[in-house]
């Protein structure tokens, strides 16, 4: 496993964004079926790309740099595309609102009114994402994940707002943010 093909990238990027996840969680996140994801992970597990601990997958430094390399080549054109860069500038504003609302929501113990504002911000992002999807079709997947998790929140499962261990709205948002930063070539320093 040296250079990644698109499918390898989608799976390993899923691991990269989730940091530590089972094959099922990755399959759900990237919108591929579990057997495909398992076969990519299986091939990578024997190399210095990936390790498995406690049933969950983690990228090793080699794997991370392969993912970054793929971003660099595949999205080179995006990095000077004015539409994408302008979209990102707008995203930063929405992102600030979202982060503020999440911390308000947390400190207000899941207040309903703050929650409805927060979900409206998520809907704003999914609406805006429609503009990017023609350029980056795999972003469609974020829209459907947001939709599913918002429905869970609406059904009263408050964990789907920001619990870190499930596909919560906050997790999806955070993964998306890291993803778009990598696309435009501004990896976040964590």
């Amino acid at each position, binding site marked *: 496993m040296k250079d990644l093909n698109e499918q390898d990238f989608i799976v390993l990027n899923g691991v990269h964004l989730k940091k*530590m996840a089972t094959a099922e969680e990755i399959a759900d996140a990237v919108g591929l079926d579990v057997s495909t994801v398992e076969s990519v992970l299986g091939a990578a597990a024997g190399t210095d790309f990936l390790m498995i601990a406690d049933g969950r997958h983690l990228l090793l430094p080699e794997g991370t740099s392969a993912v970054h390399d793929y971003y660099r080549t595949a999205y080179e054109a995006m990095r000077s595309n004015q539409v994408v860069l302008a979209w990102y500038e707008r995203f930063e504003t929405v992102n600030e609102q979202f982060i503020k609302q999440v911390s308000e929501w947390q400190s207000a113990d899941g207040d309903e009114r703050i929650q409805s504002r927060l979900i409206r911000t998520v809907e*704003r992002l999914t609406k805006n994402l429609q503009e990017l999807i023609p350029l980056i079709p795999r972003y469609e997947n974020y829209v459907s994940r947001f939709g599913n998790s918002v429905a869970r*929140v609406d059904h009263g499962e408050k964990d789907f707002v920001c619990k870190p*261990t499930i596909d919560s709205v906050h997790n999806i948002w955070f993964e998306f943010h890291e993803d778009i930063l990598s696309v435009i070539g501004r990896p976040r320093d964590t």
Partner: protein
Amino acid sequence: MQLRVMANVMDDSFVREVTDRDVEDALRFGGKASGLAKMARAGIPIPPAFVIGVDGFHQFRTNGGKIDQRLLSEIHDAIRALENQSGRSFAGRVHPLLVSVRSGAPVSMPGMMDTVLNLGLTSASAFALAGGPGGSGFALDTWLRFWRMFADIVLGIDPSELMQSVKDAESMARNDLTLASFENLERCILDQIESAGETASADPCRQLEQAVEAVFRSWDSARAKAYRKHHGISDDLGTAVTVQAMVFGNADENSGSGVAFTRNPNDGNKALYGEYLIGRQGEDLVSGTHTPIDLSEASALDAGLRQAFERHSETLERLYADAVDIEFTVESGQLYFLQVRPAKRTAAAAIRIAEDLVAEGVIERQAALARITSEQVRKVSRPSFDEADLAKAALLTQGLGSSPGHAHGAVILDADRAADRALAGEAVILLRPTTSPQDIRGMLAAGGIITARGGALSHAAVVSRALDRPCIVGCDAIDIDLKRKTFSIAGRTYHEGDQVSMDGSTGKVFAGAVKLKAAGAGLPALRRILEWADERSEASVWISPKSSDELIESTEAGVPSGSVVSVTDLIIANGRIGRFVELTVAAGPPNPPRGIAEEIRAIVCEACAPALAGASGRVLQFRLPRVSSDRARRLIENWQELPPGFFLPLGSMTYLRAILLGISAAAERARHEGAAVLIGGISACSEFATFQREAEQAGLRAGAMIQNVMALDDIVQITETGAPIWVDAGDIVRTVCGLPIEVQQSLDVLDQYANEKLIRANPFRRLPPYVANLLSAAAMAAERGASLGIEGSTVPPELLVELHRIGFRRFSVPVGRRDEVRFSLGRLQKE
């Protein structure tokens, strides 16, 4: 009769004032208006308001999604009435009436339109307002707040983008303060809305219509539809719309805004609590730009207002049968309650308030139990630092708390060493510069994780939250020398193995091992709530302490029940597990070398003596080590090379007798009468009979831990001997399902599996009917009063609730979960 006819005639109108008695019907006028109506009737001062009932919504639907002429004229009449009551004029140039528009479905649901505030201003009236006491800043903020909300909620336009695009016009209006600049700003906003493909009007009447239509339309939003489908709510129910006059806390110096709680939301104490800002609007309170007055101070409000407040608080608590929080505004000396809801509160306050409301005769005990959640009981019962001990502890440094919880242990700088020492039974804190996937084994084993670098989204933080381990990151002050196995803080050097304590919420690291205690039972209110729970459940919840210290602590804290403690845990806590494992291996083959049995006896005696002494005469039962257990398999290196016969419960009498003698020697030393020993893994009453003889010879009472289904066949017969018997619920469910222990230890994996509909339910959360049948004979014996309990250390409380429902009344759980389990058992509804 005459009156009846009159009433029917009046019933025809879509729009009602909230003081109308009919409006209390939430099904026709929505929850919000119904709440306002009840408050108005109870004499609570509210700003005037009217409501468009769900009949209006149906009319809107029938009319093809448009407000018809009749509804429109009713709305205008109602606005006229608001004008009369408030002495202001809607869309008027001076003294304008501003209103809020809110959705009000009979059941509140997500996806419905939120509130639009400050509707009613025009460029002309905003400009006039700028010359008033609030000043131009207030006028522009109020007006633009309306446009932001209107754009966002009614038109679906990004409000920050809208404001960004009219920034120049806005600053011109702020600087020039001319009517022309206000008009220009209004024109820019309308143009911008148009270029985003929407239409809006500068006329408040038209804006009100649009807002009402938006509420009605939001009934059919995708999210609201999905919600109704999920909850089986009819799509034809419809929604009401509440329109209420806005009042202003910045009208003059006799005005202000605040938030009040009828009881302290932190500790539940019954006293007015909250904040009041003189001459300001509610938003200023939220933004924190002005320092409010503390309502608990007697001088915070003038005597008249305070008196009114106290009277209304009392009324509202009776109305809600609960503590409430209140948003209020004083406009020119007149007090208005804007919103009242059951108050948010901390876990500790929830418990105190529920208990007090029972004492005040407001609610019944059963209702009090229903007011509290298991989560809240768990929160106050979570092991936390002993406050007295914490006060003495020296703060070493503070980083970023990134996964909550308290922990203490020996600092270990390497993941593998941390894992090894944790396996040996030591409490360990893993300290690393940063963590990487290679450290995962150590992170799993450690009680807490600290890193010198990294932020809230670093590997250590993310993984710790996933593992539910306390974690602190970004402790810049810690300098780690991995080669020398030392770390230094502020010039002082520490060595690997030194004890520290950490608080994963505050990020504080302390020197030494601060004592941990289960906090919950210390709260008097919780104690009483749990007594009520016990009365209802008629259950007795024992504890399974992990060490003699834990046992002694809970004895001192007054836990009255018995304890079930594992001999292996005691040996681990005593630091002798390494030697004990070697001796166990040596004891396996037939005719083990002499001296082995004697040394086993001595280790067991040393490990058990403190527990027996600390039990102070309370019932204490020992789980005997079982060579075939999953833990033994992990602890013993060449486990598979042991002789197969050794894996049977009575496979080595030498080994069994040595352990029994060790316990009996310890009991004798501690002068503890009637200690019982529980044998695991047996499947027949003949095995038990033999074990019973052996135990009696050692002067101990025999009992058993039932871990397999086969033994359930004989369980009634075994209990008839009067022996104490426990059924290990986790083992029974796991073996029936054929799952390995690893799956049981990560229940969320099975939750996920069940979510994917691959199995009906997680069998550790919902008792499978098959298992319930297997347990029915035992459950009946337990109901008849047999000495038969459920060992529930490895299953979640909801499974114990189900086992209680089929008849079990005795349970044993870890110390830290006892309160929560008692609460959960008492909270369930009896048939």
